[in-house]
């Protein structure tokens, strides 16, 4: 087991290095000149060159990279070109909102998906099963921005129940929950269908397995059999899937944050790309990729711990 952990950690480090190089190169490949944008329409060529020098953009690319990595390891991700604030501070200000949105959406998708999946598996073959399966497919089949706007239309305007968007004014209050409802439902829509179907199919498989029949032979009530044994074993692939979905949701958060004006990193990143704010783009993508890699690592370790039958190359 220890060897496995060590191997995964080493692979993770390698991946992080690879990600940083890839991000760095990609950001540099983007056409457009941040110095020109920062200097503005009125700037002369000399002024723009001055700005460029100040940003360190006139150095050869490997020197820029080395400098960047050196500072990053100390926790300094540079300063935003436009707001002049340290990048890590921008990330620190905005990531919790994205994390909250992603986590709540994931939890929502998980809970609703599992419930629907279990009901479908239990009532296999019935009308409920068909409706649930089609319904879960439907959630995944609509463009996320259309779903978001429709939800605003329905719940904010016509029913007047929920706010149209924006961030909640306080941390632990009812208003907070109310602002979170629509964005998280929209984002959860991306995953909930797959979770439901995965739950359903793995439960159906497990129900056929030996040890469940053994439990049934002991005379336990059928309900307990289903809920306890089948569900627990069906959770392994579902949890794995949800761990992978984190990355998908992180990406989907970009659109959701735009629509609901949720002050998270997704919006920050899109604006940074538009204004060629290199340090912010690099820092934000590197950060998000690192979080994703970390979560993957956790899921891998969890998987290895949960199911020792699995062998790895």
């Amino acid at each position, binding site marked *: 087991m220890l060897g496995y952990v060590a191997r995964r950690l080493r692979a993770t480090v390698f991946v992080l290095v690879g990600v940083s190089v890839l991000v760095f190169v990609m950001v540099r490949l*983007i*056409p*457009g*000149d*941040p110095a*020109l*944008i*920062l*200097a*503005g*329409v*009125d*700037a*002369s060529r000399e*002024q*723009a060159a001055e*700005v460029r020098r100040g940003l360190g953009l006139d150095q050869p690319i490997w020197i820029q990279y080395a400098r960047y990595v050196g500072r990053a390891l100390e926790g300094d991700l540079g300063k935003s070109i*436009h*707001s*002049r*604030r340290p990048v890590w501070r*921008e990330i620190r*200000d*905005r990531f919790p909102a994205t994390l909250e949105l992603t986590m709540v959406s994931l939890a929502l998708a998980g809970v609703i998906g599992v419930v629907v999946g279990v009901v479908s598996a239990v009532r296999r073959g019935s009308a409920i099963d068909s409706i649930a399966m089609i319904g879960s497919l439907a959630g995944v089949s609509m463009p996320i921005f259309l779903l978001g*706007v429709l939800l*605003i*239309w329905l719940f*904010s*305007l016509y029913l*007047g*129940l*929920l*706010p*149209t*968007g*924006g*961030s909640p004014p306080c941390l632990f209050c*009812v*208003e907070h*929950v*109310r602002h979170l*409802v629509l964005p998280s439902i929209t984002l959860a829509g991306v995953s909930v269908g797959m979770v439901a179907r995965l739950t359903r199919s793995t439960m159906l498989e497990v129900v056929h397995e030996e040890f469940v029949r053994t439990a049934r032979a002991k005379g336990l009530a059928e309900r307990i059999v289903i809920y306890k044994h089948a569900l627990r074993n069906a959770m392994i692939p579902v949890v794995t899937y949800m761990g992978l979905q984190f990355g998908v949701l992180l990406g989907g958060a970009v659109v959701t944050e*735009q*629509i*609901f*004006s949720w*002050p998270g990193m997704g*919006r*920050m990143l899109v*604006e940074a790309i*538009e*204004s*060629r704010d290199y340090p912010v783009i690099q820092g934000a993508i590197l950060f998000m990729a690192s979080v994703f890699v970390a979560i993957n690592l956790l899921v891998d370790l969890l998987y290895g711990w949960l199911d020792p039958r699995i062998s790895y190359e």
Partner: protein
Amino acid sequence: MRARMRFLLCLGLTAMLMWSGAVVAATPDDTLVIGYNRAANNLHPGVNASLPNIWANMLIYDSLVIHDAQGKVHPALAKRWEVSKDGLVWTFYLRDDVKFHSGRKLTANDVKAHFDLWKTMPTATKIAALEKTEAVNDITVRFTLKNPTLVFLSMISQTEWSYSGIPDSEAVKKYGQDYGVLPESISGTGPFKVTGWVRNDRVELARNPDYKWGPSFYKNQGPARVEKVVIKTITEEAARSAALERGEIDMDISLSEKDAPRLGKTKGLRVMVQPKNTAHHIGFNHDKPLFKDQRVRLALMYAIDQKAIVEAVYNGYAKPAVGLWSTSVEGHTPPAEMAKIAPSYNPARAKQLLDEAGWKPGSDGIRVKDGQRLSFTSYGYSEQQANLLAVVQQQWREVGAESQIRQLEYAAWQKAVTAGEQDVSYTDGTHSTADLSYWWVCKSVPYPNILKRCDEATDKYFEITQTTLDPKKRVQAFQDMEKDFMRRAAMIPMPHTLWVVGASDRVADLELHPIHGYFKLLDARKTK
């Protein structure tokens, strides 16, 4: 049984949760909540400003002088001013009762400090004529110019993008690069001060109770009538309009033209429309051989149906352009006069001109000459511009010209047009006066002169406007330049966009300004 009970309980709780907020959907009585589609990023005047920054700065700072909605300059922080006979020395006498939000008194040193700092920034092109600034005493500032010009007074008015707003020099010194970025650093003399700033989400302002030096064209020169102002960023159009309808915001200063007709008829809301000082146009790249022939340029001008663009792209919320400048810009040619000179919608004439120029219709309707098709690229940098170019594309097709639309994001567009890639490009232009013409002098090639057009007559006219001390001569020169542009089809003017603001009826005494929207909010107040 228990599971079902628990489920119903959850459902009940959820419903209660949603209802509890449903009733309270109005903004507080003492706060004016303004919605906009972009966020402020730096509140130091002088830093390259985008509109959200400018609006906030209008509330937080004051300048020496300020324009009213009719374009007349009024005293603000300066009580009066004098110009020397040779036009080189401008002396401003400040009020002595002005305090910053930090409590410090405003002195001439603050003004000097700001102008000195401003001169080092890229935005200093506005005060290019300024040689040096001196603080003669606590209430007197003296500017010495490199050359005499009337432009200087306009450029240091607060309506010029608010660059000239005076911040507390002590605060600027203390915070350095962080001034304007950290909310606690910001200190101006304006009717509102910053109390909170959640980046990309909202700027929170509170009334400055000591304020009594408002411009005279406001009914109220003293403390503002609203206690608090919140500028909220809501990027999604549909969400913003919904927020206005629901009463989550009191004003939307970037109201979607799609929703404007409906919201104007909605009870409790009104839509205000104000002309904008624009000079939007489609510019030819005069380096390209295709456009060396004036007949081709004229033909493409004649092919444009402005009304169709106004309908389709702006849902009616724009004004067809006759000349380049909108009628609220100082220096524009009166429309009646311009209409006789500038080409207007006449596809028959366009076809005639192209025939004369040797372009014969090909088999697919696109004209051909010497084996070359009348096909060119048209560049833009926003979705709305791409939509406009799509309408224009159809109109050009009618007369046998084919355009290919290239929509890039702003940074990539800037790079491309500087390099002269485009054949034609849409360009937005908003400015208080026609001094924006500096875009088209020889010195401005390749950027911002993306027309790549170096013309003696243009330079001559511009020189006059910048150096004459006779206002009439200045206006005349601008008009001559504009007429010349239209006559020789230097660029094709595009409809003038408008300020479209949606406001709740609870907001009273709201006035709009032709460049910056809502201005200083001294009269505005909220009713029950």
